[in-house]
């Protein structure tokens, strides 16, 4: 009979709650408490409004369910005839209002605190690209790109036979051969000192992205042509993971963020090392490279920067990303090829790599493309050539990208 249907169904609905309740790691199901004062306040606020909502739910559903059992026709009750009561209606308009005010006051307080950008001690400009982050330390001149760790990038390609569970299980630390948490590791971490109020300046070069690190309770959109401010003050050293949180195209799911908070002294050492490394990169451009060296470095650069679109075997995706193997550009005039990679193609997803990659990396990847995937041109492109081009070619600083008329208007009748 139908009532049996209902009873059976109600029972199984309740059984459903068992896995929810039995789940061992409640912590993994809730908002992280985070490691800053703000994140803790947000967490507290979240829990408070959550409990209030639960209480409201319990009250409303309680009355409803009681009524459903007590006031049913099968029990022989006669329906009452009342259908309005001004008093009751005023009560249930005012009481929710009061509850809302009780929620709004602490919320406003936290919000005001979050929006206080004054007295920051250090600024980092974060520029979002499809699909990587650029971090520029405004005080020390350190600047680098950060993107999904290549081994993860490989594993996440369609048809890759990497065993995710074995390679990237949450328990594996980064540095165990490959490891790290799947899709959460980057090649270059953002390193910041603890105990300092750090101001982030967010912008983007192509489309809107959003820089989100849950443990810091910061999420701010990176909007091309505009700068949004944001700040964090971390007390505890540690590694905090985040993600791009605004749909930004094909690679949106693959734009992780890693923030490593370290003591000041460690940070200073890191900065010094970075500055040294940057200097040596520019030296690299001046020496003669061997063909094979370029190809093998180029392969790595390709995997890190180009593969997400042009694919592992250089076959591209028909209708979306052209193949590199057999491409007119990669087998034709090398100048055209260099121009394509350095300056990108206006109005397409092929962005300019001149600022993203060093002279050596550019030369390497171009050499690689011209000698891989069946492109047997035999060409060798020296980094010094790129370096000399940099002065002549119209190379845009990443900041100014957004200034240019044609970046956002894309193809078509202009």
């Amino acid at each position, binding site marked *: 009979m139908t009532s049996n249907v209902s009873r059976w169904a109600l029972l199984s609905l309740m059984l459903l709650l068992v896995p929810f309740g039995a789940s061992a790691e409640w912590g993994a199901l809730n908002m992280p408490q985070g490691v800053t004062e703000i994140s803790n306040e947000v967490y507290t606020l979240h829990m408070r409004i959550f409990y209030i909502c639960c209480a409201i739910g319990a009250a409303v559903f309680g009355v409803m369910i009681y009524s459903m059992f007590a006031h049913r026709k099968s029990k022989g009750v006669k329906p009452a005839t009342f259908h309005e009561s001004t008093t009751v209606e005023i009560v249930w308009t005012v009481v929710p209002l009061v509850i809302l005010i009780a929620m709004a006051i602490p919320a406003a307080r936290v919000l005001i605190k979050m929006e206080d*950008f004054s007295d920051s001690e250090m600024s980092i*400009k974060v520029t979002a690209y499809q699909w990587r982050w650029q971090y520029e330390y405004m005080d020390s001149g350190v600047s680098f790109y950060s993107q999904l760790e290549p081994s993860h990038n490989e594993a996440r390609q369609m048809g890759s036979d990497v065993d995710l569970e074995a390679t990237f299980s949450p328990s594996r630390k980064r540095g165990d051969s490959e490891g790290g948490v799947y899709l959460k590791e980057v090649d270059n971490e953002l390193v910041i000192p603890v105990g300092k109020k750090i101001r982030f*300046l*967010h*912008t983007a070069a192509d489309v809107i992205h959003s820089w989100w690190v849950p443990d810091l309770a910061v999420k701010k959109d990176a909007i091309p*042509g*505009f*700068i*949004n*401010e944001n700040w964090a003050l971390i007390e505890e050293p540690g590694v905090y993971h985040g993600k791009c949180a605004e749909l930004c195209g094909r690679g949106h799911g693959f734009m992780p963020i890693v923030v490593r908070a370290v003591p000041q002294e460690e940070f200073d050492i890191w900065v010094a090392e970075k500055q040294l490394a940057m200097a040596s990169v520019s030296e690299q451009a001046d020496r003669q490279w061997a063909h094979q060296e370029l190809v093998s470095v180029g392969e790595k650069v390709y995997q890190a920067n180009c593969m997400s679109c042009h694919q592992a075997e250089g076959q591209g995706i028909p209708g979306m990303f052209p193949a590199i193997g057999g491409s007119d550009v990669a087998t034709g005039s090398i100048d055209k090829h260099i121009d394509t990679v350095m300056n990108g193609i206006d109005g397409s997803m092929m962005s300019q790599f001149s600022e993203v990659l060093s002279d050596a990396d550019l030369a390497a990847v171009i050499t690689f493309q011209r000698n891989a995937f069946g492109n047997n041109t035999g060409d060798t492109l020296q980094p010094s050539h790129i370096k000399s081009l940099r002065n002549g070619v119209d190379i845009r600083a990443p*900041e*100014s990208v*957004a*200034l*240019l*008329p044609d970046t956002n208007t894309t193809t*078509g*009748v*202009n």
Partner: protein
Amino acid sequence: MSTAATGYYVPHDARWPIVGSIGLFIFFFGFASWLNDGAFGKEMFFIGMAITIFMMFGWFGLVAKESEAGTYSPQVDASFRLCMMWFIFSEVMFFAAFFGALFYARTFSGPWLGGLGGGGAEMTNAVLHTGHDYVWPSNGPGDVGGKFVPMGWFGLPLINTLLLLSSGVTCTLAHHAIRAGHRKPFILWLLATVTLGFIFMGLQIEEYIHAYSALNLKLTSGIYGSTFFLLTGFHGFHVTMGAVILLVVAIRAMRNHFSAENHFAFEAAAWYWHFVDVVWLGLFIFVYLF
């Protein structure tokens, strides 16, 4: 079939709607292909447009015929009125989107790019758009479309304002005439309105030519050019529509379709005309004057 005598008129066998759907389908499909230089885009665009216009004449013609035949009760008339009223309201909201864009650009994004206002505005200007000062009219920090001269309010725009305002007056005079049952003056005032409308359009074209050739003011001239041409352009399109409708009404008037009591087609056209008028006032104030 219900007729005015027994109740609300419910037509049967509506054939024009499907024609309209097919027409618009071809039109939109063609337009989209055309924008992408696709095959037959342009052809489809014009064929679709032709079918749609054919549909409008057919449909409105049918309604006119039914109206002449006395099929419509006052209640049907009221439905038409409500329909027209809220259609105009929806048009108002369409323009509101573009006015909204204008206000937003002028009060928020423009100053923000120029470093004014709180939050990240200062850094936006200092880091991304060094040296850019915001002044309206603006084509942005990228100087998109190159230097241009904004359109002044004196001259053509002012003349156009006066033209359109007086066309509102002639339109009202036409209304008074028909209500008093004076057919001749009605037609004359109507034709005067239409004429003013077409002169307005002529001058508007003149203004565009002037903008493109002498002022270097183009659709591509940054946000100023974008808002200027889209607002005035859509308005101009509506003026054209309104004038054509009024012209059709005038022709129908010559064929003696209207009486002192029954002239809703004219009234609908007149409402539309006044709406176009009011939008222009908004344009004149916010696009040209300030």
